[in-house]
């Protein structure tokens, strides 16, 4: 067993999940089953292989240009200008579970 009860509790805590007793034991079984399959990746030698985080850096690159301009995926124009259009205030709070019309309201933050 790679993943233990303690790991499940720790990871659930990191992920802001509580999980019932039943869910925790199912999670223990499933994570071990999946990671058992994933362990086959260790068969591959990858010391000299660069990690790939995304596809966009691997094509449409123009080496004549510099920095982010080199990519076929430029920075969003509104971000480049530093002016991101915001949602109108009322639209932004419209879906809020609890609001006073100006702010999102949540239960008390400080616990004792």
């Amino acid at each position, binding site marked *: 067993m790679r*993943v233990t009860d303690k*790991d*499940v509790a*720790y*990871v*659930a805590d*990191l*992920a*802001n*999940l*509580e*999980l*019932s007793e039943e*869910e925790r034991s*199912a*999670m223990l079984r*499933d*994570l071990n*089953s*999946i*990671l058992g*399959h*994933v362990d*086959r*990746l*260790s068969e*591959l030698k*990858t010391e000299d*292989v*660069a*990690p*790939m*985080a*995304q*596809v*966009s850096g*691997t*094509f*449409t690159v123009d080496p004549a240009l510099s920095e982010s301009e080199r990519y*076929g*995926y*430029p*920075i*969003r*124009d*509104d*971000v480049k200008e530093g002016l991101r259009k915001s*949602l109108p205030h009322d*639209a932004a709070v*419209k*879906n*809020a*579970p*609890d609001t006073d019309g100006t702010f*999102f309201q*949540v*239960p*008390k*933050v400080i*616990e004792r």
Partner: protein
Amino acid sequence: MMTSLHSIDSLRNAIREERTTAIAVASEYYQRIQNYDGEVGAFLTLCEERAMKQAGLIDQMAAEGQPLPPLAGVPIAIKDVMVTAGVRTTAGSRILDNFIPPYDCSAVTRLEAAGAVILGKLNCDEFAMGSSNENSAYRPVHNPRDKTRVPGGSSGGSAAAVAAGMAIATLGSDTGGSIRQPASFCGVVGLKPTYGRVSRYGLIAFASSLDHIGPFANTVEEVALLLRTIAGRDPMDSTSADVAVPDYVAELVKPVKGLRVGVAKEYFAEGLSPEVRTAVEAAIQELAKLGCEIIPVSLPHTEYAISTYYIIATGEASSNLARYDGARYGFRAKSSTLSEMYRKTRDAGFGAEVKRRIMLGTYALSAGYYDAYYLKAQKVRTLIARDFKEAFRWVDVIASPTCPTTAFRLGEKSNDPMAMYLADIYTVTANLAGVPGISVPCGESSEKLPIGLQLFARHFDEATLLRVAHAYQQAKSRLQHG
């Protein structure tokens, strides 16, 4: 008035010549949804008001003799992971049960600008996580071809709606095969474009480096028309590529003679159903008859793709889904402190598969395991991408089965996550490498279940991909109808 106009071209011409109206067509489709969707379960939300308003505008244009846009009056439905202004968008999850987005997904905006009538939002696996549509928090979708079977997933509603004639075309999303696999299971055409070809702005994020939006329809030609409409640079998505969009429809008629079609033995391995193998091999023979040269290629890291995919996809998902905390929108569980609110909201709002993936992703990214799992998977992703790069030095497209089997029964795999994940074994590679892939119907099993032929092409070469798929579909239809 029943029109029985079920292709984009015939419908648009009929509206232009005022033999029918966009409003009559939309009404007919809503009637079909009412008649058939009770048994299928493809739709989660209908937006009749929005549809009829758009249809009215199209009818007005036709009455005034104005030139009609390419998708004028075409009834289209959208997977419920793409946001629609003023129309409830759930991502198939309880946590977004009451969410009314304030803006439109770019792909939806582009379809409507081209005249499409958006009928409603389609059922899917929760947050697009699943291969059977059984992970929808609302109801499972039934395969219109055999209602005891799954339609595939996660875009099960998108495939089923087209297969049942409840929309002419639909949009889905594909993170590991979620367009191509249900297209194969339901007997329709489904395309996952190149990463960056279609803007993801307004697509509810699952795994950002693997997520793609793409179309479903009955014909390759219609899929080409939809892609032409939604493709291209969008200033609102920095990963949408600034690469020219060809006229995919015009490109379809170019000859396929002399094109090189690769066949990789890794896609005909253990676990492939003999009936699927036979149908796909016959389809490849058909491509040879059309003058394509069939060349053996190798994609040697294919067997590692599922493992690589489930580490990367869940890692990205655990991060993307952190935003669902009950504070600003969506469901909130009753609680007395903030941390309790987060936990109770997420516990009650997410289903079992979503929690499993958040847990796996969080584990793989956590201190002590990052190098062994996440970094390792990113390196293997490089090897998988290199496999394609090497193969595409020798061939123009690669042909394979879309799935190792035909549609399985509802409930058959729902208790075994690993068995469910393996349904994506032939599709996840294209997401990891970012290359485009399409599934085209290529026959039926002895149980009359559809089988899909999958084709891959080079990055941004959807034109060749669609051309080969179209030539195959035309040849097959000539064979069937004499």
